[in-house]
């Protein structure tokens, strides 16, 4: 190999390794810092109790309201977003809406994806005021759903697009209808990618504070109905980190640690599922 090609090879290796290291280091760094600052205040009552003294300021009790609240919010939103995103992604196949309409839809989804979540929050708030709905679990779920749809639908769409046309042609050639082809072939083949889409959207949903700031409201209690206001982990972090009290700030890191743990666990479960689902994939 001549020296120039050799240098090229080396340079690229260095670049790639450096970039990879940065990726791993950033996750490790985040976990480390959050754990160092939050681990001291993390205890069982943090997880199972609701805050004492109101607005997390009592330095006592826990953030069960925010944990359960976030799980309520994001579970509801993930389910709703899935029910909407999957048909959208499947409809984007050319045998349904055609290339032109699909391109336009993708543009719309990408713009929605790029829209800041605070805008979703403000939009949701305006609509809720107009309809006379209070900030509530329902409001939060709806706004989060809207926030999650573009990312979920586009990720699923990319997975659906990767299904080889010849594979679909096989099913059509056997006399399958569009629905049969879509469910038996496209859905199955794209299933791991569809899982990834759900996870990406879940991640965006559970970590987002701005969209639910005005729409989900705040409470120290665990909501018992869709119309109750609801607390959430990102806002628990935000409010507590914003206080001047060091003990409360430390509890913000404990809340962040819990949020991080949920994200990691859900991702691992999803990987496991995705791996099982990929058994029948045709390459």
């Amino acid at each position, binding site marked *: 190999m001549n020296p120039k090609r050799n240098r090229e090879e080396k340079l690229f290796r260095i670049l790639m390794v450096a970039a990879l290291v940065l990726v791993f280091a950033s996750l490790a760094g985040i976990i480390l810092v959050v754990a160092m600052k939050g681990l001291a205040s993390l205890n069982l009552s943090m997880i199972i109790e609701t805050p004492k003294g109101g607005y997390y300021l009592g330095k006592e009790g826990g953030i069960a309201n925010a944990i359960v609240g976030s799980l309520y919010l994001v579970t509801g939103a993930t389910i709703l977003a899935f029910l909407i995103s999957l048909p959208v992604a499947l409809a984007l196949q050319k045998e349904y809406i055609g290339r032109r309409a699909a391109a336009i839809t993708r543009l719309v989804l990408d713009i929605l994806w790029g829209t800041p979540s605070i805008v979703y929050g403000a939009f949701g708030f305006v609509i809720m005021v107009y309809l006379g709905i209070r900030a509530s679990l329902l409001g939060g779920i709806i706004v989060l759903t809207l926030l999650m749809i573009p990312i979920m639908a586009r990720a699923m769409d990319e997975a659906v697009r990767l299904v080889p046309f010849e*594979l679909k042609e096989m099913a059509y050639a056997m*006399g*399958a209808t569009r629905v049969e082809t879509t469910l038996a072939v496209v859905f199955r083949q794209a299933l791991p990618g569809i899982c990834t889409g759900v996870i990406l959207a879940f991640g965006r949903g559970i970590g987002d504070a701005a969209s639910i700031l005005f729409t989900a409201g705040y409470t120290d209690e665990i909501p018992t109905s869709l119309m109750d206001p609801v607390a959430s982990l990102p806002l628990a972090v935000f409010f507590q980190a914003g206080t001047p009290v060091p003990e409360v700030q430390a509890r913000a890191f404990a809340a962040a640690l819990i949020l991080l743990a949920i994200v990691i666990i859900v991702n691992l479960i999803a990987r496991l599922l995705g791996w099982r689902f990929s058994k029948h*994939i*045709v*390459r």
Partner: protein
Amino acid sequence: MAHIQIQQLRVSYGSLPVLNDINLEIPDRQIVAIIGPSGCGKTTLLKSMNRLLDLNEDVSVTGSILLDGVNIYDPAMDVTCLRKRVGFLPQRPYPLPMSIFENVAFGPRIHGLSVLSAGGGGKQAEKSLVEHYLRLAGLWDEVKDRLDEPAAKLSIGQQQRLALARVLSIEPEVILADEPTSALDPVSAKLVETQFKLLKENYTIILVTHILRQARRLADYIVFLYMGDLIEHKPAAVFFSAPDDEKTKAYISGEIS
């Protein structure tokens, strides 16, 4: 047994004409080979016969193809029924993303065939159906102990026979095969060829091939296409011993390919 008649068929992709005025009557219960140089329109002609061409967006088809006297390009035609009667075996045997068993059961399920079969449906009837078609395709002995495994794990040669089992499972009257052995090793190719010879008792088989020797070995009837034109079609023996057209002679002798 379905009878196919092609009348004044013209196909173009966008503004590119690919088939010009094809008139052809397909003899029944024979192996018909469509031969011709690459790009002459063999696949297109084959796919026109079960309307797989419809899946291309910018394709336009004029003329008619009669299946037992009924024009398959009639807007009232039920395409799923048509494709059930005229099965298709592709060049590359994509297995469906499911188990070996489900690959063969898929067709009967969507067309409700296992319900009609002996035993009145149910799991047992489906099992015997799947076994029956895997045997027909000469694959049963190799897969009988691993029916629940992903079909994608099979070798290419096995996948092609699985594809054959899948086509047979919808109980078609005609089988269209697009270079069914081109992706296969010689042994697997021989296996598939053997299956075809057995199958022609009951099916009309239309086979695209660019291997002249294969056409000689297998075909009873030859259709020769050249740049979108139907040059010559006649019984294989006559075609190879006494071709009429200069282009045919040149193609058989290997001067054009």
